[in-house]
């Protein structure tokens, strides 16, 4: 099931990259005076990629249903998922948007595939790619969710532009070699793509490192978890693709420019460009496979929760409390800002805000109300729910990332619920 899910995710990423890459190539990269047949061919390729995306999404929905039902899903369950779950609603919206985009492309083809219309379709395809972030690991991060979702959306779009654009470029260079287009024409489109690739790579490197930090958290997690190891593999592939890209940027462009300046027929230069672009594209394909796997793996930063959930001691709390030893704070501290001392609340929901200095070991806080563990908070604020009327003592205690090691760092206030 996991393999199927990863495969569907990889195919979905690939299809969307091919969609955007071919639309951008047709609308933005092709130099003036390109053969109409090439433009139409790229548009047909983009439509095929979009249809594949829509079909793969249906397969992904059935897999999702199978996970929920633990067997082949019923139509009733799928309908409930699509109408009641956040991720189901997003799936439905993306599928409808994708279907409308197919109709729009069909309309553009019927009207002669003018360049400005192709550019509109290319821009309209971006939300389809970026909206994948709304059901990704990014949306499940507790703090700064919006920022992380935006970073993920930029990352996905930049990846689709680079890798999808490369695959489209390969098609264009292949077409040029086959149809014996002037080598100057090929050199020009490679030059156009290089500019786009430079921007895309910069964006995806920045957002990629930011997200890696969010989802992995520490070097140890990178080495000791499946997610971390797959991410490492992706980084190795990214480095290889970057090297191939640098070679194309520094060398292939020069090879093509030399062929233009010497007025050669460009057969050898085209062949070299095709081979190098093909290698870079192939590494891009492997990166999509790694990304598909990352999509279904649990982020490394959750490994501690997974382990804690599996290994938590069954010893009684009373016994644990008697033996409870707090680890040295080593600079960690917490300060409760709200509730204030003696503050009175009219409802059973009490807003909580605090400042946390994690220092070496501290990661989040546990909230105890009258000695009973009520929740954990990783941000700077939250809500304590279901408090009974009366006087209460709130204690926030700093905890290490393993969720079990509490530190000798706490703050305490008394408040009242009416």
């Amino acid at each position, binding site marked *: *099931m*996991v*393999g*199927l899910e*990863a*495969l569907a995710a*990889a195919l979905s990423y690939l299809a969307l990259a091919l969609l955007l890459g071919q639309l951008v190539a047709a609308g933005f990269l092709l130099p003036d005076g390109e053969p109409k047949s090439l433009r139409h061919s790229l548009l047909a390729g983009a439509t095929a990629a979009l249809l594949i995306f829509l079909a793969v999404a249906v397969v992904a929905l059935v897999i*999702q249903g199978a*996970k*929920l039902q633990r067997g082949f899903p019923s139509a009733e369950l799928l309908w*409930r*998922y699509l109408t*009641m*779950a*956040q*991720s189901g609603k997003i799936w439905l919206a993306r599928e409808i948007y994708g279907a409308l985009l197919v109709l729009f492309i069909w309309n553009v083809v019927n009207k002669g595939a003018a360049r400005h219309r192709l550019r509109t379709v290319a821009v309209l395809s971006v939300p389809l790619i970026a909206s994948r972030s709304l*059901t*990704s*690991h990014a*949306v*499940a991060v*507790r703090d700064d969710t919006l920022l992380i979702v935006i970073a993920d959306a930029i990352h996905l779009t930049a990846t689709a532009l680079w890798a999808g654009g490369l695959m489209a470029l390969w098609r264009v260079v292949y077409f040029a070699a086959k149809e014996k287009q002037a080598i100057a024409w090929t050199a020009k489109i490679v030059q156009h793509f290089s500019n786009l690739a430079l921007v895309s790579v910069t964006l995806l490197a920045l957002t990629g490192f930011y997200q890696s930090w969010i989802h992995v958290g520490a070097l140890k997690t990178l080495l000791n978890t*499946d997610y971390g190891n797959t991410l490492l593999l992706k980084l190795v592939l990214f480095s290889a693709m970057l090297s191939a890209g640098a070679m194309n940027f520094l060398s292939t462009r020069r090879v093509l420019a030399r062929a233009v300046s010497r007025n050669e027929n460009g057969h050898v230069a085209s062949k070299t460009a095709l081979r190098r672009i093909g290698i870079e594209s*192939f590494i891009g*394909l*492997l990166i999509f*496979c790694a990304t*598909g*796997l990352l999509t*279904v*793996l*649990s*982020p490394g930063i*959750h490994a501690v*929760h*997974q382990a*804690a*959930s599996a290994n*938590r*001691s*069954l*010893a*009684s*709390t*009373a*016994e644990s409390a008697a033996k409870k030893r707090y680890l040295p704070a080593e600079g960690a501290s917490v300060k409760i800002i709200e509730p204030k001392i003696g503050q009175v609340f009219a409802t059973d929901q009490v807003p909580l805000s605090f400042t946390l200095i994690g220092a070496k070991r501290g990661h989040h806080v*546990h909230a105890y109300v009258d000695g*009973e*563990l*009520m*929740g*954990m908070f990783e941000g700077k604020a*939250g*809500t304590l*729910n*279901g408090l009974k009327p009366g006087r209460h003592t709130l204690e926030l205690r700093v905890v290490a990332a393993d*969720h079990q090691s509490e530190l000798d760092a706490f703050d305490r206030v008394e408040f009242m619920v009416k």
Partner: protein
Amino acid sequence: MYSKFLIVLSSALLLLALPDSHSWGHAYPAVSVPNNGATVQEPPRELRIQFTEAVELAFSQITVKSVNGAIVSQGKLRQPSSDTLAIDLKPLSAGNYSVEWQVLSVDTHVTDGVLRFTVGAPAN
């Protein structure tokens, strides 16, 4: 050239299709009340689990069972906050209880597991 390409591509896809041997899910209990493994003196009136991620109420369930398998949770599952689920409990007598949970997290992953707690004899 093409045959080599196909071999490498097939290997990559096969790698993805390998059967899973791990728990791959994403939302795990971070804190539960009563806590996992705890012995409480006073019978709790509700069970509450805070997960590491936001979860979908419509596709989540918690069942609390006594040691003989009788279901002691009652009423509808509630979601006091996006990452927390709570369910009411019948009056509990002293004994061991298991908490079977299954959730769908907002990033589409389904996880499940079992927590345990004990209601101890009241202190004299």
